[in-house]
């Protein structure tokens, strides 16, 4: 259980608060999307979870333990792949484990396993420049898995991709999650993407963010793109868009 309680946060040196008295609860094992307009504080939410920023007030806990005392519980996948061009695909994937000084053989085995999972077996000796954008994102995802957290923080991982690659990676990610024992928090701008991928959608509201509106997605675990055409789903999308629009004009 992930818990934000009365969290207030302002970037040091900045005037405007990003979060004020913000609370959030999220269950284990879900696929939760976070949407909100640009600049609303989605990435900041992840930075707080990562420990890259500390809230001025309130607490963030995982199963009741404050975040600073937890280690390696969250693995962050940034918006750009940020692969290291001088490392081979395999070495990139191993990076989180190399940093933790785990034995080399173990790292390599794990990296190969993860690469197989993301459908890139046989590419381990290649360098990032030889890969397409979609492949690079999959390597980045494999690296995130190698970081070993139970909570995956994915920050708009597909926003830089063309729409075809994007759709196939969405289907791929959904399939991955069905087989992984992980909680995923997924940031996106895209309502359709959020609906297709997640069980639950959180919309950040207010500026600074003071609360959120939750939506359950009434789709089964195994889902297809055609289901997005169902009337109840179409209505959910309309609701989300209306809410985002009213937030934007405030």
């Amino acid at each position, binding site marked *: 259980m992930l818990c934000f309680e009365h969290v207030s946060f302002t970037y040091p040196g900045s005037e405007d608060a990003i979060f004020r008295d913000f609370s959030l609860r999220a269950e284990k094992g879900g696929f939760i999307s976070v949407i909100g307009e640009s600049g609303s504080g989605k990435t900041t939410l992840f930075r707080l979870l990562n420990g*890259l920023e500390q809230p001025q007030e309130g607490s963030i806990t995982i199963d009741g333990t404050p975040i600073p005392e937890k280690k390696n519980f969250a693995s962050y996948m*940034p918006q750009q792949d*940020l692969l*290291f061009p001088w490392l081979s695909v395999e070495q990139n994937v191993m990076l989180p484990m190399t*940093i933790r000084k785990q034995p080399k053989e173990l790292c390599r085995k794990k990296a190969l396993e993860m690469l197989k999972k993301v459908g890139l077996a046989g590419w381990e000796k290649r360098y990032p420049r030889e890969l397409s954008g979609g492949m690079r994102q999959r390597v980045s995802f494999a690296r995130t898995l190698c970081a070993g957290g139970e909570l995956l923080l994915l920050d708009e991982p597909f926003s830089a991709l063309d729409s075809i690659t994007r759709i196939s990676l969405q289907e791929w990610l959904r399939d991955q999650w069905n087989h992984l024992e992980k909680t995923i928090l997924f940031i996106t701008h895209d309502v359709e993407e959020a609906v297709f991928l997640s069980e639950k959608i959180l919309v950040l509201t207010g500026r600074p963010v003071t609360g959120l509106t939750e939506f359950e997605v009434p789709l089964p675990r195994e889902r297809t793109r055609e289901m997005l055409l169902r009337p109840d789903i179409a209505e959910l999308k309309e609701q989300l868009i209306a809410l985002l629009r009213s937030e934007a004009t405030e």
Partner: protein
Amino acid sequence: MTRAGYKQDRAAAERKTYSTVTRQMPGVIFLCMLLILWQVLSQAIGKPYLLPSPLSVLESLWENRREIFLVHLPATMEVVAIGGVLAVLSGSLFAILMDWFPWLKRALYPILTWTQTIPVMCIAPAFVLWFGYTVKMRVIVVILVNFFTVTVNLYDGFASVRPERIELMRTYGADRLQIFSMLKMPTALPYFFTALRISIPWSVIGAAVAEWLGAQNGLGTYSRSCMMNLDAAGLLAPLLVLTAFALLMNALLGMIERRVLYWQE
């Protein structure tokens, strides 16, 4: 790699060598024309003590080959090598320290960029006053000519790391030393090679100028003594050697660079 992919790569590589040849062609032709013009002009003027022909420079080089290659070239190479290595070491050390201690960077960086505009060659005579006509004096000139280039380039390399990458490593729990060795060093490597590529010719120039000021042996010294004897061809011969020496070192560096930076586009 697929067979077709391999073929494509081969074709691309061949195209590349071909285009390198065609790209360099105008330069080569122009150089030949200049040399011919020089030869014709010097023969027309007919005063070899003023304008020696390129052939006579080569001839002078051949006649004095023992002295030039066995005595003077090694002396110059020694200064270039010692000075160059020390410049790279000290410059790298300063760049690393400036990266590690931000206050040091704030103190030194403005001064460093500012001192880059000082023509070290012109203050070289002052070193003669302090250190005499010694190897030490010449080495110091070579160090000073290159120190700033190495420091500033390498520091800029460290500073060019994308902050997102640093943060990503921090989310994996990396400490400062790991961020430095696994991220900053590789990022700065291309900048380091750029610094070396600039440093090689300047080390040679620095050494020659320092020798020109006064030294027992060295190509600069040799050139200067030829000037005293109004031997224009002899004056130019060592310059030819110096240029060839610098070009050779740069070619070697280029080969190493391509090996080390294999991952670049």
